[in-house]
Protein backbone atom coordinates (compact mmCIF):
# COMPACT_ATOMS: atom_id res chain seq x y z
CA UNK A 1 0.00 0.00 0.00
CA UNK A 2 1.47 3.28 -1.02
CA UNK A 3 1.86 6.28 1.26
CA UNK A 4 -1.12 8.10 -0.19
CA UNK A 5 -3.41 5.12 0.25
CA UNK A 6 -2.39 4.88 3.89
CA UNK A 7 -3.02 8.59 4.23
CA UNK A 8 -6.44 8.16 2.70
CA UNK A 9 -7.38 5.59 5.31
CA UNK A 10 -6.08 7.83 8.10
CA UNK A 11 -8.02 10.78 6.84
CA UNK A 12 -11.19 8.78 6.45
CA UNK A 13 -10.88 7.70 10.06
CA UNK A 14 -9.99 11.08 11.44
CA UNK A 15 -12.27 13.39 9.51
CA UNK A 16 -15.48 12.81 7.68
CA UNK A 17 -14.49 13.46 4.08
CA UNK A 18 -17.37 13.43 1.68
CA UNK A 19 -15.45 12.30 -1.33
CA UNK A 20 -11.92 11.00 -0.97
CA UNK A 21 -10.28 9.81 -4.17
CA UNK A 22 -7.20 9.99 -6.38
CA UNK A 23 -7.69 12.23 -9.45
CA UNK A 24 -4.29 10.98 -10.50
CA UNK A 25 -1.54 8.79 -9.20
CA UNK A 26 0.17 11.10 -6.71
CA UNK A 27 -2.68 13.40 -5.84
CA UNK A 28 -5.19 12.82 -3.05
CA UNK A 29 -8.32 14.88 -3.10
CA UNK A 30 -10.97 15.04 -0.40
CA UNK A 31 -13.90 17.24 0.45
CA UNK A 32 -14.47 18.16 4.08
CA UNK A 33 -16.95 20.34 5.91
CA UNK A 34 -16.13 23.96 6.63
CA UNK A 35 -15.20 23.42 10.24
CA UNK A 36 -12.73 20.63 9.43
CA UNK A 37 -10.57 22.55 6.94
CA UNK A 38 -8.21 24.03 9.46
CA UNK A 39 -7.88 20.72 11.27
CA UNK A 40 -7.23 18.79 8.08
CA UNK A 41 -4.65 21.27 6.86
CA UNK A 42 -2.80 21.48 10.14
CA UNK A 43 -2.83 17.69 10.35
CA UNK A 44 -1.32 17.50 6.88
CA UNK A 45 1.21 20.23 7.64
CA UNK A 46 2.35 19.40 11.14
CA UNK A 47 1.87 15.65 11.44
CA UNK A 48 2.32 14.35 7.91
CA UNK A 49 4.81 16.95 6.75
CA UNK A 50 3.05 18.61 3.83
CA UNK A 51 5.17 21.68 4.46
CA UNK A 52 4.85 23.35 1.10
CA UNK A 53 1.63 25.17 0.34
CA UNK A 54 1.04 25.18 -3.39
CA UNK A 55 -2.14 27.08 -4.08
CA UNK A 56 -5.57 28.09 -3.00
CA UNK A 57 -8.20 28.08 -5.67
CA UNK A 58 -11.88 28.77 -5.84
CA UNK A 59 -14.45 27.15 -8.13
CA UNK A 60 -17.86 28.65 -8.65
CA UNK A 61 -20.61 25.99 -8.71
CA UNK A 62 -23.37 28.35 -9.71
CA UNK A 63 -25.97 25.59 -10.15
CA UNK A 64 -25.51 24.31 -6.60
CA UNK A 65 -25.18 27.80 -5.17
CA UNK A 66 -21.79 26.98 -3.69
CA UNK A 67 -18.20 28.14 -3.90
CA UNK A 68 -15.61 25.43 -3.60
CA UNK A 69 -12.33 26.40 -1.96
CA UNK A 70 -9.43 24.16 -2.91
CA UNK A 71 -6.22 24.04 -0.85
CA UNK A 72 -3.37 22.18 -2.52
CA UNK A 73 -0.30 21.17 -0.51
CA UNK A 74 2.89 19.33 -1.43
CA UNK A 75 5.01 16.92 0.57
CA UNK A 76 8.66 17.74 -0.15
CA UNK A 77 9.99 14.36 1.01
CA UNK A 78 7.33 11.92 -0.11
CA UNK A 79 6.77 13.86 -3.35
CA UNK A 80 2.97 13.77 -3.29
CA UNK A 81 0.23 16.36 -3.49
CA UNK A 82 -2.90 16.54 -1.40
CA UNK A 83 -5.98 18.60 -2.09
CA UNK A 84 -8.35 19.72 0.64
CA UNK A 85 -11.66 21.05 -0.56
CA UNK A 86 -14.61 22.62 1.09
CA UNK A 87 -17.86 24.12 -0.11
CA UNK A 88 -19.16 27.39 1.20
CA UNK A 89 -22.45 29.10 0.64
CA UNK A 90 -22.51 31.31 -2.41
CA UNK A 91 -25.03 33.81 -1.09
CA UNK A 92 -23.24 34.53 2.13
CA UNK A 93 -19.71 33.89 0.96
CA UNK A 94 -17.56 33.87 4.07
CA UNK A 95 -14.74 31.78 5.32
CA UNK A 96 -12.07 31.90 7.96
CA UNK A 97 -8.72 33.22 6.87
CA UNK A 98 -5.86 30.75 7.19
CA UNK A 99 -3.09 33.28 6.68
CA UNK A 100 -1.46 32.30 9.98
CA UNK A 101 -0.69 28.81 8.69
CA UNK A 102 1.22 29.84 5.60
CA UNK A 103 2.12 33.45 4.82
CA UNK A 104 1.48 33.16 1.11
CA UNK A 105 -2.19 32.25 1.64
CA UNK A 106 -2.63 35.98 2.23
CA UNK A 107 -2.08 36.69 -1.44
CA UNK A 108 -4.40 33.94 -2.61
CA UNK A 109 -7.16 34.95 -0.25
CA UNK A 110 -6.81 38.54 -1.30
CA UNK A 111 -7.25 37.56 -4.93
CA UNK A 112 -10.26 35.32 -4.23
CA UNK A 113 -11.83 38.07 -2.17
CA UNK A 114 -11.47 40.37 -5.13
CA UNK A 115 -12.35 37.96 -7.92
CA UNK A 116 -15.14 35.97 -6.27
CA UNK A 117 -16.24 38.16 -3.43
CA UNK A 118 -15.51 35.60 -0.73
CA UNK A 119 -14.98 37.42 2.53
CA UNK A 120 -12.13 35.97 4.57
CA UNK A 121 -12.68 36.73 8.23
CA UNK A 122 -9.55 37.83 10.01
CA UNK A 123 -7.51 38.59 6.92
CA UNK A 124 -5.10 41.45 7.62
CA UNK A 125 -5.07 43.04 4.22
CA UNK A 126 -8.25 42.70 2.20
CA UNK A 127 -7.59 45.48 -0.28
CA UNK A 128 -7.80 45.60 -4.08
CA UNK A 129 -5.10 43.41 -5.54
CA UNK A 130 -5.45 43.26 -9.29
CA UNK A 131 -8.40 45.42 -10.23
CA UNK A 132 -8.60 49.13 -9.67
CA UNK A 133 -11.76 51.10 -9.03
CA UNK A 134 -13.89 48.09 -9.83
CA UNK A 135 -17.58 48.73 -9.31
CA UNK A 136 -19.27 45.75 -10.93
CA UNK A 137 -19.77 42.35 -9.31
CA UNK A 138 -16.61 40.29 -8.70
CA UNK A 139 -15.58 39.35 -12.22
CA UNK A 140 -14.68 35.71 -11.84
CA UNK A 141 -18.16 34.75 -10.71
CA UNK A 142 -19.86 32.73 -13.38
CA UNK A 143 -22.85 35.02 -13.61
CA UNK A 144 -20.63 37.93 -14.59
CA UNK A 145 -20.92 38.28 -18.36
CA UNK A 146 -17.66 39.72 -19.60
CA UNK A 147 -18.87 40.28 -23.16
CA UNK A 148 -21.82 42.28 -21.88
CA UNK A 149 -19.45 44.35 -19.77
CA UNK A 150 -17.20 44.95 -22.75
CA UNK A 151 -20.14 46.11 -24.88
CA UNK A 152 -21.13 48.53 -22.18
CA UNK A 153 -17.75 50.03 -21.44
CA UNK A 154 -15.65 49.84 -24.57
CA UNK A 155 -16.12 50.78 -28.16
CA UNK A 156 -15.49 48.29 -30.94
CA UNK A 157 -13.51 49.17 -34.00
CA UNK A 158 -15.68 49.04 -37.09
CA UNK A 159 -15.11 46.00 -39.27
CA UNK A 160 -14.69 43.56 -36.51
CA UNK A 161 -18.34 42.56 -36.35
CA UNK A 162 -18.65 42.04 -40.12
CA UNK A 163 -15.92 39.46 -40.30
CA UNK A 164 -16.55 35.75 -40.22
CA UNK A 165 -17.40 34.01 -37.03
CA UNK A 166 -14.14 32.49 -35.81
CA UNK A 167 -15.98 29.52 -34.38
CA UNK A 168 -17.50 28.50 -37.71
CA UNK A 169 -14.35 29.27 -39.60
CA UNK A 170 -12.15 27.15 -37.39
CA UNK A 171 -14.65 24.32 -37.73
CA UNK A 172 -14.53 24.41 -41.54
CA UNK A 173 -10.80 24.79 -41.67
CA UNK A 174 -10.41 21.91 -39.30
CA UNK A 175 -12.70 19.72 -41.44
CA UNK A 176 -10.64 20.44 -44.53
CA UNK A 177 -7.39 19.84 -42.73
CA UNK A 178 -8.68 16.56 -41.37
CA UNK A 179 -9.65 15.29 -44.84
CA UNK A 180 -6.06 15.60 -46.02
Amino acid sequence: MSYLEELKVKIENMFSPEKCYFPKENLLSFLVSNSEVRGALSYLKDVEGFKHFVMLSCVDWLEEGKFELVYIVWHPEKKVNAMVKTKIDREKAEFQSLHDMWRQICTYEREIWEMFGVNFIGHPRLEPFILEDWKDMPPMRRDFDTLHYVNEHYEWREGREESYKPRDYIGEAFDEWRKK
Partner: protein
Amino acid sequence: MCTDNPGVWEYIANWARKHSIWVLAYGTGCGAIEMPPTMTSRYDAERFGLRGAATPRQADLLIISGYLATKTLKRVIRTYEQMYDPKYVLALGSCTINGGMYWDSYNTIKKLDLYIPVDVYVAGCMPRPEAIIEGIIALQKRIEEGRAEGAKKYRENIEWYKKNQREVFGDEMLPDYTWNFEGGI
Protein backbone atom coordinates in the same frame (compact mmCIF):
# COMPACT_ATOMS: atom_id res chain seq x y z
CA MET B 1 6.89 77.29 -29.85
CA CYS B 2 4.26 75.84 -32.08
CA THR B 3 4.54 77.38 -35.49
CA ASP B 4 2.07 76.93 -38.29
CA ASN B 5 4.55 77.80 -41.03
CA PRO B 6 7.52 75.57 -40.69
CA GLY B 7 10.66 77.42 -41.61
CA VAL B 8 14.14 76.20 -42.35
CA TRP B 9 14.85 75.59 -38.69
CA GLU B 10 11.76 73.50 -38.33
CA TYR B 11 12.80 71.51 -41.37
CA ILE B 12 16.23 70.83 -39.87
CA ALA B 13 14.63 70.13 -36.50
CA ASN B 14 12.37 67.54 -38.09
CA TRP B 15 15.40 65.94 -39.65
CA ALA B 16 17.07 65.80 -36.24
CA ARG B 17 13.94 64.47 -34.59
CA LYS B 18 13.75 61.78 -37.19
CA HIS B 19 17.26 60.62 -36.45
CA SER B 20 17.08 60.87 -32.72
CA ILE B 21 14.10 59.06 -31.25
CA TRP B 22 14.30 58.30 -27.57
CA VAL B 23 12.05 55.48 -26.56
CA LEU B 24 10.47 55.46 -23.14
CA ALA B 25 11.40 52.24 -21.39
CA TYR B 26 7.90 51.25 -20.39
CA GLY B 27 6.97 47.68 -21.24
CA THR B 28 3.22 48.02 -21.02
CA GLY B 29 2.32 44.60 -22.36
CA CYS B 30 3.69 41.40 -23.76
CA GLY B 31 5.20 43.20 -26.75
CA ALA B 32 7.92 44.27 -24.36
CA ILE B 33 9.48 40.86 -24.92
CA GLU B 34 10.46 41.78 -28.48
CA MET B 35 11.94 45.11 -27.42
CA PRO B 36 15.22 43.66 -26.08
CA PRO B 37 16.01 41.88 -29.37
CA THR B 38 15.16 45.09 -31.23
CA MET B 39 17.51 47.16 -29.15
CA THR B 40 20.32 44.63 -28.77
CA SER B 41 23.01 43.22 -30.94
CA ARG B 42 21.00 41.33 -33.52
CA TYR B 43 18.68 44.06 -34.76
CA ASP B 44 20.49 47.03 -33.21
CA ALA B 45 17.90 49.77 -33.41
CA GLU B 46 20.50 52.24 -32.18
CA ARG B 47 21.64 52.46 -35.81
CA PHE B 48 18.51 54.52 -36.48
CA GLY B 49 19.19 56.80 -33.55
CA LEU B 50 16.85 54.99 -31.18
CA ARG B 51 17.82 55.09 -27.58
CA GLY B 52 16.14 54.12 -24.38
CA ALA B 53 15.09 56.98 -22.13
CA ALA B 54 14.49 56.28 -18.49
CA THR B 55 11.91 58.93 -17.77
CA PRO B 56 8.95 60.39 -19.68
CA ARG B 57 10.39 63.90 -19.48
CA GLN B 58 13.25 62.91 -21.76
CA ALA B 59 11.40 60.62 -24.13
CA ASP B 60 10.05 61.27 -27.60
CA LEU B 61 8.39 57.98 -28.38
CA LEU B 62 6.04 55.97 -26.24
CA ILE B 63 5.82 52.39 -27.42
CA ILE B 64 2.58 50.76 -26.35
CA SER B 65 3.66 47.17 -26.49
CA GLY B 66 0.47 45.19 -26.71
CA TYR B 67 -2.82 45.11 -24.85
CA LEU B 68 -3.53 47.69 -22.23
CA ALA B 69 -5.34 46.79 -19.07
CA THR B 70 -7.40 49.68 -17.76
CA LYS B 71 -5.07 50.02 -14.80
CA THR B 72 -2.13 50.44 -17.17
CA LEU B 73 -4.07 52.75 -19.46
CA LYS B 74 -4.33 55.22 -16.61
CA ARG B 75 -0.54 55.16 -16.17
CA VAL B 76 0.01 55.37 -19.90
CA ILE B 77 -2.12 58.49 -20.21
CA ARG B 78 -0.32 59.99 -17.26
CA THR B 79 3.03 59.14 -18.81
CA TYR B 80 1.96 60.47 -22.16
CA GLU B 81 0.87 63.76 -20.68
CA GLN B 82 4.19 64.09 -18.89
CA MET B 83 6.16 63.77 -22.10
CA TYR B 84 7.21 66.94 -23.86
CA ASP B 85 5.94 67.93 -27.28
CA PRO B 86 6.77 66.72 -29.96
CA LYS B 87 5.94 63.23 -28.83
CA TYR B 88 4.91 60.15 -30.72
CA VAL B 89 3.08 56.94 -29.97
CA LEU B 90 3.79 53.62 -31.64
CA ALA B 91 1.32 50.85 -30.86
CA LEU B 92 2.36 47.25 -31.23
CA GLY B 93 0.15 44.26 -31.67
CA SER B 94 -3.36 43.47 -32.78
CA CYS B 95 -4.71 43.97 -29.29
CA THR B 96 -4.12 47.72 -29.46
CA ILE B 97 -5.89 47.93 -32.81
CA ASN B 98 -9.13 46.08 -32.12
CA GLY B 99 -8.73 44.09 -28.97
CA GLY B 100 -7.08 41.13 -30.67
CA MET B 101 -7.54 37.88 -28.84
CA TYR B 102 -8.66 39.71 -25.73
CA TRP B 103 -11.76 40.99 -27.52
CA ASP B 104 -14.08 39.79 -24.78
CA SER B 105 -11.90 40.56 -21.81
CA TYR B 106 -13.42 42.98 -19.33
CA ASN B 107 -10.10 44.51 -18.37
CA THR B 108 -8.42 45.43 -21.65
CA ILE B 109 -9.23 48.31 -23.95
CA LYS B 110 -10.14 47.61 -27.54
CA LYS B 111 -9.19 50.78 -29.39
CA LEU B 112 -6.15 52.69 -28.26
CA ASP B 113 -6.66 55.74 -30.47
CA LEU B 114 -9.76 56.68 -28.51
CA TYR B 115 -7.64 57.56 -25.51
CA ILE B 116 -4.35 58.86 -26.87
CA PRO B 117 -3.37 59.81 -30.42
CA VAL B 118 -1.49 57.00 -32.13
CA ASP B 119 0.97 57.71 -34.92
CA VAL B 120 1.80 54.24 -36.16
CA TYR B 121 0.20 50.87 -35.57
CA VAL B 122 2.19 47.69 -36.05
CA ALA B 123 -0.03 44.64 -36.40
CA GLY B 124 0.80 41.12 -35.33
CA CYS B 125 0.98 39.00 -32.23
CA MET B 126 3.86 39.42 -31.50
CA PRO B 127 5.18 41.82 -34.12
CA ARG B 128 8.66 40.67 -34.98
CA PRO B 129 11.62 43.01 -34.41
CA GLU B 130 11.72 43.61 -38.16
CA ALA B 131 8.11 44.77 -38.00
CA ILE B 132 8.90 47.08 -35.11
CA ILE B 133 11.79 48.57 -37.06
CA GLU B 134 9.58 48.98 -40.07
CA GLY B 135 7.04 50.76 -37.92
CA ILE B 136 9.75 53.06 -36.67
CA ILE B 137 10.85 53.82 -40.20
CA ALA B 138 7.25 54.66 -41.07
CA LEU B 139 7.21 56.96 -38.06
CA GLN B 140 10.46 58.57 -39.20
CA LYS B 141 8.84 59.30 -42.54
CA ARG B 142 5.89 60.94 -40.84
CA ILE B 143 8.19 63.01 -38.64
CA GLU B 144 10.19 64.19 -41.62
CA GLU B 145 7.04 65.28 -43.40
CA GLY B 146 5.89 67.01 -40.23
CA ARG B 147 2.76 64.87 -39.97
CA ALA B 148 3.49 63.31 -36.61
CA GLU B 149 1.64 65.93 -34.58
CA GLY B 150 -0.10 63.73 -32.05
CA ALA B 151 0.41 66.18 -29.21
CA LYS B 152 -1.26 68.96 -31.15
CA LYS B 153 -4.18 66.69 -31.97
CA TYR B 154 -4.44 65.74 -28.32
CA ARG B 155 -4.48 69.37 -27.23
CA GLU B 156 -7.05 70.37 -29.79
CA ASN B 157 -9.42 67.48 -29.14
CA ILE B 158 -8.82 67.25 -25.44
CA GLU B 159 -12.54 67.17 -24.58
CA TRP B 160 -13.15 64.25 -26.86
CA TYR B 161 -10.22 62.30 -25.47
CA LYS B 162 -11.19 63.07 -21.90
CA LYS B 163 -14.76 61.98 -22.61
CA ASN B 164 -13.52 58.62 -23.90
CA GLN B 165 -11.20 58.21 -20.97
CA ARG B 166 -14.03 58.97 -18.60
CA GLU B 167 -16.08 56.17 -20.14
CA VAL B 168 -13.44 53.71 -19.00
CA PHE B 169 -12.37 55.18 -15.72
CA GLY B 170 -15.71 56.47 -14.53
CA ASP B 171 -15.33 59.06 -11.82
CA GLU B 172 -11.75 58.09 -11.02
CA MET B 173 -10.24 60.46 -13.53
CA LEU B 174 -6.62 61.48 -13.59
CA PRO B 175 -5.42 64.93 -12.67
CA ASP B 176 -4.30 67.00 -15.63
CA TYR B 177 -0.65 67.15 -16.51
CA THR B 178 1.33 69.16 -18.97
CA TRP B 179 -1.06 69.13 -21.92
CA ASN B 180 -2.65 72.42 -20.95
CA PHE B 181 0.27 74.74 -21.31
CA GLU B 182 2.33 75.50 -24.35
CA GLY B 183 6.05 76.01 -24.52
CA GLY B 184 6.78 75.84 -20.83
CA ILE B 185 6.05 78.62 -18.38
